[in-house]
């Protein structure tokens, strides 16, 4: 049931304790403070579905219908423990909510059997939610006590995985839209801009530009129409913080967009979202519809005189459209090719009008900043770089997921203390931070605090906040080649340095991880020259590329050459990959004890590198072997192995 206009205004104007008993009851139900029946929430956002949440949902539905149990089954977002999905939370009336991990369909019956008998299943429990007025479960950890959550400061992500992303009512009774209504009713445009400047909020997409100053540039450019665009084109490999925010708490983003649009004097906002983010799209569409119906979007919002329309545009898929001028070109119905800056979009952007492009995470920070004031925000994190940052952690790490920490937290805290570090028996080699535009952080630099300035002074970048954890069995060169291949494929092709430069750099990296086919031994020299060329090409690309994609594409190469030059040298001079990742550099051998001499491998070898006589053990000639591994695949006697 949609809260009506009066109820919303009442909530927005009054403190929680000032509500009438009926309104308080209504509010408690929406906030799930008081429950009429047990509540089961399943993370049905992308991270959950990929792990099997749909099947879990069906299993729960079947369980309760078979036993005629009355429950509220609701979708929720992700609390950020991606490697523990599907996460299911259960709240019995009057008791605190319990969170369980890896609840696949087969585990549902036993788990619910226990819970509906008020017994806590002992397996895969994450913890209980700290909720005042609810009876806690004894001897169970609170979520905010376990290391993963204890060291985070979830001012943006806090409600993801807790609230129902389809419920506008729940968002509003939790304090939502208070900030927006306060803004449009009592602050002038100029005051909002000043407030955000004072807060020190900086763009969270990697650029770190002061958000308030960007707004002011648009605010100061006279025009008949201005546009606010939310950049939800998150194609960075390994980055999914924006997706999680949109799937977990779409109303937060929409409130942020509304505040930003007001601040620049715009009544037209667009959300440019990747078409692959189907779940986020469906939730945002639903949210916009509900907001329109309740009068929080549209004409004369809540009698304030402010009009706002927010439209969704699905990005047809191009990483380069994350760059603001390319995004604007895409919105205009053109190929997503960036254009030179200046002029900046704040003065001349979409359809030639002043346009501000802000990142999802940046916008999601706004409601809290308005509600709590700029000083509060300024107090989090170091000077000059206030607030928190959400990092997406993946790779060779115990817990993959999303972590929101105050700026200034060290990589050590994030990766080792919060995400559990690498698996037992392995060593941390490096972190790759920031995706294709990012850099390698070697193990010895893990104590660098994460803020724009401190990273810059260490010649590192944050990027959008994706952290890929690499252990001793991960090949640095292979990882760098992966990122360069990605940029090569995603480059728009407009400018020469990026188009041709990334192609050549990718070729050089590919040649380094390939087996030498040159009998004369010149390959080593060629590869060595190739590495030198990587550096000189990188400099020119950084200096002359048209947009950030090309300018930052060489970052992984340059940082890995700085800290892991020895790995390059091993590949080039020793022709070895010590992490055994580069398949072509593997040396293949035949175990004479296992080989029956069936000769299938010799027949299938593309370079005729296997010799022998029938029914005697065969032998691989190393100089002819190109490392393709076909012999390994066809051998029925597991006689082929690599070192």
């Amino acid at each position, binding site marked *: 049931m949609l809260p009506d206009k009066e109820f919303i205004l009442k909530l927005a104007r009054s403190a929680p304790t000032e509500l009438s008993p009926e309104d308080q009851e209504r509010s408690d139900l929406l906030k799930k403070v008081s429950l009429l029946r047990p509540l089961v929430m399943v993370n049905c956002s*992308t991270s959950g579905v990929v792990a099997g949440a749909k099947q879990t949902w069906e299993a729960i539905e079947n369980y309760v219908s078979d036993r005629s149990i009355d429950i509220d089954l609701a979708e929720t977002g992700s609390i950020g423990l991606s490697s523990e999905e599907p996460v299911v939370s259960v709240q019995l009336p009057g008791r605190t909510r319990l969170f369980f991990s890896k609840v696949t369909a087969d585990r549902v019956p036993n788990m619910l059997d226990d819970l509906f008998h008020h017994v806590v299943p002992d397996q895969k429990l994450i913890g209980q939610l700290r909720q005042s007025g609810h009876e806690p479960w004894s001897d169970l950890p609170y979520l905010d006590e376990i290391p993963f959550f204890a060291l985070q400061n979830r001012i943006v992500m806090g409600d993801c995985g807790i609230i129902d992303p389809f419920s506008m009512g729940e968002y509003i009774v939790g304090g939502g839209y208070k900030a927006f209504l306060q803004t449009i009713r009592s602050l002038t445009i100029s005051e909002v801009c000043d407030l955000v400047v004072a807060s020190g909020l900086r763009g969270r997409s990697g650029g770190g530009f002061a958000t308030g100053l960007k707004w002011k540039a648009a605010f100061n450019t006279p025009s008949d129409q201005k546009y606010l665009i939310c950049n939800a084109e998150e194609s960075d490999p390994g980055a999914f913080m924006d997706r999680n925010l949109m799937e977990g708490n779409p109303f937060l983003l929409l409130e942020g967009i509304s505040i930003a649009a007001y601040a620049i004097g715009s009544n037209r906002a667009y959300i440019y979202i990747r078409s692959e983010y189907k779940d986020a799209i469906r939730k945002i569409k639903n949210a916009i519809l509900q907001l329109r119906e309740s009068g929080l979007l549209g004409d004369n919002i809540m009698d304030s005189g402010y009009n706002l329309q927010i439209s969704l545009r699905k990005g047809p898929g191009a990483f380069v459209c994350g760059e603001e001028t390319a995004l604007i070109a895409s919105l205009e119905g053109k190929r997503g090719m960036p254009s030179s800056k200046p002029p900046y979009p704040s003065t001349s952007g979409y359809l030639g009008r002043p346009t501000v492009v802000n990142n999802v995470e940046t916008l999601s920070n706004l409601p809290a900043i308005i509600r709590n004031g700029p000083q509060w925000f300024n107090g989090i994190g170091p000077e000059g770089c206030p607030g928190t940052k959400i990092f997406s952690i993946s*790779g060779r790490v115990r817990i993959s997921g999303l972590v929101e920490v105050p700026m200034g937290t060290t990589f050590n805290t994030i990766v080792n203390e919060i995400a559990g570090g690498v698996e037992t028996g392995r060593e941390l080699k490096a972190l790759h931070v920031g995706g294709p535009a990012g850099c390698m952080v070697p193990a010895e630099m893990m104590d660098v605090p994460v803020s724009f300035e401190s990273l810059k002074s260490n010649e590192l970048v944050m990027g959008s906040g994706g952290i*890929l954890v690499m252990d001793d069995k991960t090949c640095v060169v292979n990882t760098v080649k992966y990122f360069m291949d990605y940029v090569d494929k995603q480059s728009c092709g407009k400018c020469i340095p990026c188009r041709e430069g990334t192609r050549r750099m990718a070729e050089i990296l590919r040649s380094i991880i390939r087996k030498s086919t040159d009998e004369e031994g010149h390959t080593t020299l060629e590869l060595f020259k190739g590495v030198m060329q990587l550096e000189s090409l990188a400099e020119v690309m950084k200096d002359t590329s048209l947009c950030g994609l090309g300018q930052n594409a060489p970052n992984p190469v340059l940082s890995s050459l700085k800290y892991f030059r020895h790995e390059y040298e091993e590949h080039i001079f020793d022709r070895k990959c010590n992490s055994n990742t580069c398949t072509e550099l593997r040396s293949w051998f035949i175990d004479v004890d296992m080989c029956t001499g069936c000769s299938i491998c010799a027949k299938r070898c593309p370079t005729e590198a296997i010799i022998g006589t029938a029914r005697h053990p065969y032998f691989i000639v190393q100089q002819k072997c190109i490392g393709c591994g076909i012999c390994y695949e066809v051998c029925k006697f597991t006689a082929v192995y690599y070192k």
Partner: protein
Amino acid sequence: MATENSSMDEILKRFPQIKRNALIPLLQAVQDEFGYISEEAIARIGSHLSLPTSKVYGLATFYNQFSFSPRGVYHISLCNGSACHLGGSGDLFSELTKLLEIRDGETTRDGLFSLEVQSCIGACGQPPVMAINDTYFSGVGVKEVRDIIKQYREDAT
């Protein structure tokens, strides 16, 4: 053909304004409806928006979402994210190209399977991630992929 034409008419009716910024939503509607962008569709879109067809084609080839040949009954999307790469998506890709004898962006001759390497969708919790139509598979290895394809092939006959 007649049904295609009338579906095309329906789609064009949803975009009555002749503006360049309707081009991408219009192409997306055509892609969703027909599964690919045909020559006739390009000609009709160009004429509807008063745009040269070279611009329509040029735009459609820029983006990942649009294809110019029909997809298979089962469309396989393989995530190409960084965690999936470390998790072995490269091996899955080699296996799939070998099993289906097609490359990235192609459809098998019997029209049953098509393969696409997709940009990271951010489900980095259990790499590597693969989707066949709307069904997801995570943390699968080469052997499981062989079994999955075999299963789909059997279901189709």
